């Protein structure tokens, strides 16, 4: 961002001020994530940087909180992680299947009442979570699904489908429908056409919608707090109770693992987005 030589002084000052603000905001956004990292290797029980850590003394660092996370007898992290992954995987599958099929219908130009149906389908994204939580809890309690994995999976399907619907409809908006007609004219049935022609083309959109749905489910705490019993505890619930009672370094170890996971998700989402843009012929 070099300025041309003829720039007046006051614009020069303004420009550096602007850069300073931006730097501050970027630090504000990303720095909190990096605080957790070193502290989770703390050898002591306190959540502050000890003198030893500031002097980079190797004895001040240890893996004890990671060991505690995995082997700790009182820690329910193992169960929580298992539950979280099972719930998130099934919720993602459900959201992707329901959402993709619905998006196919929605992007057809013959779709009646498009506006109102679209509004209904994405409403779980707009309605504040606490209200969704109350409503879903009423349904699950009535259906006898409260405190079951099935209930939580269904709840997360509700919350995850809007993301799939939105991303897949966006992908389909740049979709050339003549290829499906070509497939049909060559004698392919609609299911075969979808599996062999449409799906491979919209796959980036489907997967990135699925990633959204996965993260939504994996990170969801408000609705689960209403629905979960002791056996259905998830990572966010354990973190919530842990943070409320007492901040322990074990939580930071878990948090570090979660940051690593989200980095992986971010990388795959970015790669998908680029691939999808390339496929749609958007060159920037």
């Amino acid at each position, binding site marked *: 961002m070099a300025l041309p030589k003829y720039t007046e002084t006051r614009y020069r000052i303004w420009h550096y001020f602007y850069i300073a603000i931006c730097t501050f*905001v970027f630090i504000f956004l990303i720095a909190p994530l990096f605080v957790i990292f070193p502290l989770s290797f703390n050898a002591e029980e306190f959540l502050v940087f000890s003198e030893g850590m500031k002097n980079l003394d190797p004895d001040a660092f240890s893996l004890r909180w990671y060991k505690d996370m995995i082997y700790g007898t009182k820690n329910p992290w193992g169960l929580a992680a298992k539950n979280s992954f099972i719930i998130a995987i099934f919720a993602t599958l459900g959201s992707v299947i329901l959402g993709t*099929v619905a998006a196919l219908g929605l992007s057809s130009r013959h779709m009646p009442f498009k506006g109102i149906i679209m509004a209904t389908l994405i409403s779980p994204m707009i309605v504040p979570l606490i209200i969704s939580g109350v409503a879903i809890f009423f349904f699950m309690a009535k259906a006898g699904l409260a405190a079951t994995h099935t209930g939580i999976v269904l709840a997360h399907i509700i919350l995850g489908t809007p*993301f799939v619907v939105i991303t897949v409809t966006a992908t389909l908006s740049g979709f050339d429908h003549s290829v499906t007609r070509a497939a049909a004219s060559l004698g392919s049935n609609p299911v075969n056409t979808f599996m062999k022609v449409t799906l491979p083309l919209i796959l980036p959109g489907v997967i990135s919608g699925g990633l959204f749905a996965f993260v939504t489910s994996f990170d969801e705490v408000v609705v689960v707090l209403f629905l979960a019993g002791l056996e259905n505890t998830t990572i966010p619930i354990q973190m919530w109770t842990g943070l409320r009672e007492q901040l322990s370094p074990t939580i*930071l170890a878990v948090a570090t693992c979660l940051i690593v996971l989200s980095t992986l998700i971010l990388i795959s989402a970015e790669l998908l987005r680029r691939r999808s843009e390339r496929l749609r012929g958007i060159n920037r």
Partner: protein
Amino acid sequence: MSSETKQILTTDGIPLEISLKKAERKNKIKAFLLVAPLLLFLIITYIFPIGEMFTRSIDDKMITNMLPKTFKSMETWDGKELPSEEVFASFLSDFKILVEKKEHGKLAQRLNKEKNGFNTITKKLFRQVKRNKIDETQSIKEQIMKVHKRWRNVEYWQAIKRTAPPYTSAKYLKAMDMYLNEDNKITQVSEDRRIHRILWLRTVEVAFFVTVFCFLMGYPIAHLLATLPMKYSNLLMICVLLPFWTSLLVRTASWMILLQQQGVVNDFFVLIGLVSDDNRPEMMYNKVGTYVAMTQILLPFMVLPLYSVMKTISPSLMRAGKSLGGTPFVAFWKVYFPLTIPGIGAGCLLVFILAIGYYITPALVGGASGTLISNQIAYHMKTTLDWSFASAMGLMLLGGVLVIYWLYNKLVGVDNIKLG
């Protein structure tokens, strides 16, 4: 010439218009069938339960079903003087059924909510009924009136009559710190008990300021990201996207570490000499913590829509503005800024709606002042189990969100929302 002969026919001999309509209808049904599974699923598990929240919030059928005869005989009572013998008799017979079903306690509780003092007199009446002290051959009115002096007070009978309708607005009024008094007029509760209005105001205040902060911080960096060359902006974009994909609780935890009294932020303030070491400010468990943490957490939702709008604005527009004699500031204000309004609208709407329903972060870093209306809803759902009250507050919040959404749609148009 009639129009029939002019009609174009398909090869099957069916008029083309009908044939086309038929094909069209087939396509419509096909498209609808694809959407149907999700639509049905959401209607059953989501939309319908939200409707149920409404019926739950106004439902007052319990007492209507408890005292059916009493309310029937009260229909003709004008409510000015003590009711007739008939009302007393039907009340007693309703009451006896409740005693048999052991539900008189519930009745006392419900009536006591309507008017204080019902607990005692219902208990007294229960004892009389249990011992079969009430002789049904004599005047029941006289005997009930002898049980306790309050049964002779017309106000208590008026209170019973007020509970007759199967629906009530009491929960909504309670959420606004109001109630219906004896004369059916809306009154405010005494000043020291007005807690809910504070919570509503605080919720709106927090959501508003978080939106403002997000806008002030998000606009410059969105602009930078949109104008930098691709290879730099992609790198900086990670700073926005990584928090976006990171768990909300992880980010809240890191703010708890940063903002604590021995935390990094305070260390930094001491280091640069802003505060003295023994006088570290409290930054958590108050509004500062709520604002800082929520702004950071919601900032990506402001930056992403702004970025996607700014990306589409051609840089030559600013150059044109400048070449036509505008200073950079004028060019920005008159040319660039108006073009970004759809992005500003989308970002602000998204952040405000997310912030107004926020619950987890304020509860963890906000302390007592971090209690927002969502916490109150969760509290009534989980602790007091007053689900109808929780439903009423939830629907009021939903109403607020829908009004904002509608306003936004009028002003900017919902189609402008983009998800990154």
